[in-house]
């Protein structure tokens, strides 16, 4: 019933590799193979977009027809989230002993 298509499995593994290599390539101090790791990450990104071109997308919502919609969505959602959190930080973040100072 749950047959994982080989090609999809390869893509998924490539995705995981991209995910982990991004960490290894971004860690400070730089890993000596840092650039290699990041090249592989870039490769995996390109492959994901290309793979999306060959897929018959289900259209529950109109926006799913946009090319590489989920890539754009993931990128912008993440960016939005970080900027929103940066804004909220000014308002919500307090010193660690905030409550203690308030005597609570």
């Amino acid at each position, binding site marked *: 019933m749950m047959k994982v298509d080989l090609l999809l499995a390869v893509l998924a593994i490539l995705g995981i590799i991209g*995910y982990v290599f991004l960490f290894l390539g971004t860690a400070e101090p730089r890993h000596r193979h840092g650039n290699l790791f990041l090249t592989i990450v870039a490769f995996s990104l390109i492959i994901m977009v290309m793979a999306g071109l060959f897929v018959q997308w289900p259209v529950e919502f109109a926006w799913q027809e946009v090319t590489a919609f989920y890539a754009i969505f993931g990128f912008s959602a993440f960016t939005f989230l970080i900027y929103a959190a940066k804004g909220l930080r000014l308002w919500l973040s307090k010193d660690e002993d905030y409550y203690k100072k308030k005597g609570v």
Partner: protein
Amino acid sequence: MIGWLHPGFILIIGALLIPLFKGKWKQAYLIIPPLAALIDVILMYTGVFGEIPFSSWHLPFLGYDLVFGRVDKLSFLFALAFSLASVPVMIYSLHVKSSSEHMCQLVYAGSALGVVFAGDLITLYFFWEIMSVASMLVIWHGATEKAHSAGFRYIMWHIAGGIILLAGIVIYIASTGSITFDAIGWNSGSTYLAAMLIFLGFIINAGVPPLHAWLPDAYPESTVTGSVYLSIFTTKSAVYVLARGFTGFGPLMWLGAIMVIYPIFYAVLENNLRRVLSYSLINQVGFMLCGIGMGTALSLNGATSHAFAHIIYKSLLFMSVGSVLFRTGTAKITDLGGLYKTMPLTTIFCLVGAASISAFPLFSGFVTKAMVVQASAFGGLAIVYVLLQLASAGVFEHAGIKVPFFTFFGNDSGLRVKDPPLNMLFGMGIMAFLCIFIGLYPYPLYQLLPYPVDFDAYTAPHVIESLQLLLFASFAFFLLITSGIYPPEGRTISLDTDWPLRLAGGKFIWFVKGPLTSFSNWMDGNVKRIAADFSLLGEEKEERVFIGVSVMLALLFLAFYLIVELLYQWIFS
């Protein structure tokens, strides 16, 4: 056929016997109760106690029939998740010496199983309250001042929730005459109030914003192992009771949709890793509640299977962060980084948990969360769908990237600590195996779901959609962190919905300690002075005063009598 045995009682009685054992014997004994409970639950599936569904352990009480063992597909699924998780978590905590800590944790786990198998509202309430108290004790074992006060705040939330639940149950029983716990009728006028009170009691335990603040407040303050237990039982037993009582309740879907979004901002801001995971826990429960609220077969399957997968990967994440805390003494991002070189196994386990919660294909979260998201698409719920997808990016940000990256990679903190002891690694290893197993081969889990599953997560669009979303979110992270836009962690906390309560509580305590105490001292002083004056009178002229007062009283009575008599005459003559 043999008599059914309640796995919750195995854990609770097993817990009470722990003090009888010492040293190595204790370590050997500790694994027995959770293992026995798991075997018991597996035996239920094989039909040794009868075909599922069945009910057992009936107890007459005040003319009602209490049911301790209602075993059907839904309760079995949650019981399996709870007992399955208890075994690796116990292995993970075998090194803990404190008997009382193990006892509280096992009683907590046992009472959660009690909630799951409760067939009526009275039994449910009974175990619900044991669970509250046991979990508070689990928090208190953190044994710091912070843990102590967080535990107090925690129990205040849960006492309030418990009283609301009890009020709802009492009204429900009074209006329906039945104590059976099934779908709570929120549509009928006679039970509406009861249903809403019960609902409110349930969602407090589920951690629905704005009633969630107890969770990120208290969970990070417990011990290394305590947090792992806490992450499993309270919220997921609330998911179970909501799935049982409020399937298809529209507002629950929207609460779930808000619940997936609200905590992701907090998780970005938090510095304490265990608090990040606590916010992430709320977000994940949001997916489940959203699915329960949608009320379709697919969404309910999604919600329950997601609860199952979540119990495994969330405890794995808490375990890996706990291992870091165990070795370094801190779980703060500002103090950590670069641990992958010396803690390779913990790093791998954490990444497995992170990939699972982020719903990477081949990992457990992928095959379960997809059902909830898909159900929203099938239902044409565009806003819910977008919120769930946005939350997926949010989960990936805090649990998929922030937790593993800043702990194990990021900026090297210079800490060179080893992987934790073997038992902790083994516990994490089992959890990691389960995450991957469910991801690769979800069929056995699908078979256990409440409705027949006609869903394949591994379709090309779905796999590629997830990979695109996740990898391009990583790409955004890469650009933001290398350009310095990604906000660096600071030694901060973030104010949440408990802020007004905590300040008001602080003001109240200030009022009691300050003005109220001075007022009462002042009053005490006055009363004492008056009493002293009287006693002075007594000491000096005791007899004369006594006679004088007696004479005066007699005269007063006489005067009173005369006035009354005169009035009587005047009115009636």
